[in-house]
């Protein structure tokens, strides 16, 4: 779904933005990476939205909100509400959260493949 459809107080996972290359870079630089969780702290029909990423607060105008794709948080088998990217970090259950339980994994190749 799109960010502008999300209600105040809800937390969602950032998927991608349908925006110019410059804006994509801008969003990435501001910490909006695939898999990060956003909480909507204010919806303003006139101006746009305020979202929280950890302790960062970002204000986005309505137009940008409409071009951002988000995903509702995933329920892990152990019952934890989490983003897809963070699911593997779940310490509460032994299930491999990055396997087929989660369709369409987002760029896991580095995470799973290489070591430092």
């Amino acid at each position, binding site marked *: 779904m799109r960010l502008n459809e999300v209600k105040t107080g809800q*937390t969602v996972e950032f998927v*991608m933005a349908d*925006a*110019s*290359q*410059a*804006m*994509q*870079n*801008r*969003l*990435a*630089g*501001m*910490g909006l*990476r*695939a898999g990060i*969780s956003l*909480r909507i*702290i*204010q*919806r*303003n*029909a*006139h*101006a*746009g939205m*305020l979202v*929280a990423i*950890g*302790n*960062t*607060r*970002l*204000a*986005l*105008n*309505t*137009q*940008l909100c409409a*071009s951002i794709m988000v995903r509702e948080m995933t329920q892990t088998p152990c019952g934890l509400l989490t983003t897809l990217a963070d699911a593997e970090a779940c310490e509460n259950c032994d299930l491999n959260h990055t396997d087929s339980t989660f369709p369409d994994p*987002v*760029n896991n*190749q*580095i*995470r799973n*493949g*290489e*070591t*430092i």
Partner: protein
Amino acid sequence: MAALSIALAGNPNVGKSTLFNALAGAGQQIANYPGVTVAIKTAPIQFDPAQFDQPDVLIADLPGIYSLSTFTPEEHIARDYLLHEQPAAVVTVLDASNLERSLYLLMQLLDLDVPVIAALNMCDVARQNGVKIQAGQLSARLQGLPVIETVGTQGMGIADLRLAISDAVQKGLQVRRIRAYGDDLEAVIADLMQSIAQHAPQYAKTRWLAIKLLEDDEIVREQCINDGHVALVQQADVLRAQLVNETGEDADILLADRRYGFIGQVLDSIYDAPDGYVETISDRLDRVLTHPLWGVPVFLFVMWLVFQFTANVSAPLLDWVDGIFGGLITNAAQLVLGGIGLGGTWLESLVVDGLIAGVGGVLVFIPVLMSLYLAIGLLEESGYMARAAFVMDRAMRAVGLQGRAFVPLIVGFGCTVPAIYATRTLDNERDRRVTAFLAPFMSCGARLPVYVIFGTAFFGAQGAMLIFGLYLFGIAVALLTAWVMKRAYPSQTPPNFIIELPPYRAPRLRNIIKPMLSRIGEFVRAAGTVILVMTVVLWLLLSIPVNEGEFAAVEAQDSLFGAMSQTLAPVMQPAGFGDWQASGALITGFVAKEVVIASMSQIYGVDDASATTDDAPPSLAEDAQAVVTGFGEALVLTVQEAMNIIPRTLNILPGVAIADVALLPAGDEDDTSTLENALQNHFTPLSALAFNVFVLLYVPCMSTVAAMRHEFGTRWTVYQVAYTLAIAWLAAVVVYQGGLLLGFG
């Protein structure tokens, strides 16, 4: 040889400036870039002489950035600095509370193949907020890149950072080549790097260039094409297309994902920030300050305060500066020149009416600009400006501008000169130019006395309606101009808008006052010379006799100025005020609107000069004493004006009437009834209205012209002067002729 430099880079609000101040010795310089608030501060680093004795290593504080793309002027300037100034090393400031994002910038700095030192800042705050971080591990995971823990606000870690910098300068610092993008992407990057090395060996930063070409960075792409390396661009296009085929992702998104993937690995098990939402005080404030309903009224209220501050609080000091030039300095000059036998000569006239008046004309703006930069600095530093930009974004977009454009326009109701400088808060050149173009239509305080005199002379009790109507008319012309501009000069503001809202905090005066002083110095140097020259030119016009009389002792109507006024008069005929006196007043109004009334008194011959000459002129000692007591009074009045913001603000509410604070008795108002009589003989109510419309719309003053030229160059200034003159003439003619047709003549 140019001094070695160290660049300081980092996200906004990570404590970069504090680290800069801690590292920097005396001799800070601020390089302002034309058109933006962005500045690069440089200063020599203060090393411990026992350890390292090289006095000329400069540290450059780059503007806060999120990435090395060129989305904002900040990024553009920072990137240019890193590419062209070739710093010996880059110190990047990492925010311990926001490490992922900080490392994202660090990764891009590493792509530039520069030696990087990381300052892990604000660990104390992060740990207080529940962040777990093993700082020692971070360096190991970044190939031994120096990571120094700092708490800039407490001076912690500064000595270590200084040591790391001196080591880097003395021994050289290894460039860490971290291959973070995964085998497939690294292979593509290597391919491109090889081609660059082969075909364009003049490019130094091959890895960075290859990555930017893959990202399809607009500026790099253009640069390559301009340099004749179309083949490189084409190769990058092919590789990018292949990547889309293989991975289903655009290269720039892929690169960003891989960076974050690598950062995830680096931070794995050594960094944990709580990602739950904790409501902060700022969040609670924003419930009101950016509220869908209250956000705009709150913003308008803040603007009212800014306006009160720039327009009224600076006024007493302005009068004081004016008084020094008109009193002490003028009298002293006359005394000195009289003493060496030059009293009453043209030289005395040049010094007093040309040079001293000109310098005074420059310096009176200092109190206004000080209060403007203070007000804007407070808005920026407190964190409110980012909210204002967000809240006003949509409304201002409707006229093709961005949210922040509202600030200079409001300031324009006080004085147009600071309004033009206030456009520096805008983040793109087009919006700055357009906003500055509109600013003169916001009727400034100096035009008000003209409306008042005409209002009372011709409209009596309805005078207030005339004044109010003129203000509204100015706004309407600005909106109309913005509407035309939106089509003629399309907006560069991207339709998408995102801004980080920093937590609210108490403004630090140090961060406001230093740039304020530097910008005022710049105004005096750049705009000041123009104002001075124009004052002397006007003096010449008034001094050169055309018909009779001698140089510097000629009646206004017989001077070149009078001749010009007579030439101009027929042009004004269709607007209903075709006598040379009206035109002459308008010409002096170009110098400053403040002098329109005075010069009208003079030109219409109602200036009762004999009344003052009977008194003995004050002695220099009396003048000097007046300057001192005047300064004290001005300070008291400044405080009074600042305090009066409160009752005046409350008085906006219906049913509230609080008297202003009066610490000093009000001065006597000038008696202008004789001028009113003279005006009634020369104007009809309709031509008076047309004259006021002209005064409202034409070039506010030569100081505005000087400020425009300083900020935007000669061509844009000429456009503005021509436009304001044309629209003023047109509007005045329409008002007068329309009025005649409707039978108001």
